[in-house]
């Protein structure tokens, strides 16, 4: 459907009105208010940075611990029984012989 020319014209008027923003008179206290808010923010910002560092450290610790646990578990699993110098089948026969 071909767009109505009226709609296009209205859209164009609204666009021009949007771009011709009203002139704003900034109140004299605006900058002072902003500066006060910035000074109030400082401790919070430092606290936020500290919290971020703590979280980062916690994540790194958790990751390292989990990796170490997995490696240890794998090592135990793969090495289990390697030190036995007696054949398991032989053990069974020895045990059976002891029953006699």
């Amino acid at each position, binding site marked *: 459907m071909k*767009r*109505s*020319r*009226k*709609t296009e*014209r*209205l*859209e164009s*008027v*609204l*666009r*021009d*009105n*949007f*771009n*011709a*923003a*009203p*002139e*704003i008179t*900034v*109140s004299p206290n*605006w*900058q002072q*208010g*902003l*500066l006060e*808010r*910035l*000074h109030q*923010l*400082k401790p919070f*910002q430092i606290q*936020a*940075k500290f919290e971020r560092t703590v979280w980062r450290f916690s994540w790194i610790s958790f990751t390292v611990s989990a990796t170490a646990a997995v490696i240890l578990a794998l090592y135990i699993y793969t090495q289990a029984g390697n030190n036995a110098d007696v054949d398991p089948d032989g053990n069974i026969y020895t045990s059976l012989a002891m029953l006699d």
Partner: protein
Amino acid sequence: MTVPDPDHKIINSVLNGNIDDFIVLVNKYRARVFLLTAKRIPVNDVEDVAQEAFIRAFKSLDTFSRQKPFENWLSIITLRTCCDYWRKNARLKEFTAPADDSGHLKWLELVACRTASDEYRKNIRNEDVRELLNWTLKKLQPDDRSLVEMIYFEGHSLKEAAEVLDWGISKTKVRAMRARSKMRRLLDKLLEAQS
């Protein structure tokens, strides 16, 4: 040889704890922030939103990458702050249609009349048109509103709009097309009601 950006020196100073130096940046870019805000936000709230934009910039100053100019970075923060304003206010306020207002109808009649193009362009800051614009934009979702403003009214690229809204290009493209279609349907209805 590249000339060091003077803003970087001020940013370093602020990050080292000299908060008052941030006011140098505020004074330098205040006009830009107010211009972006005044286009989008009701006059009564412009100062608060502009202040909020500077506060957000200050809070995340340590994340400023310095690969782009500070002004661009601040503009993105300002546009996001405006978008958040409408997200927050969309749930709180009920908006009434301007249909029965004689001022709006007069303007719609002028728009409808082909020979009157010069007439309606004379007073482009006209308050009735402003209200009509606000009514139309308030009918859109906050994100769609931001897209229409950035892409169709200000001529930003899809990539820039996607960066502001933190979306992918495809999503931005689809949403922008839908938003514009919705806006045009609204305008069609207004004109139909007028005729």
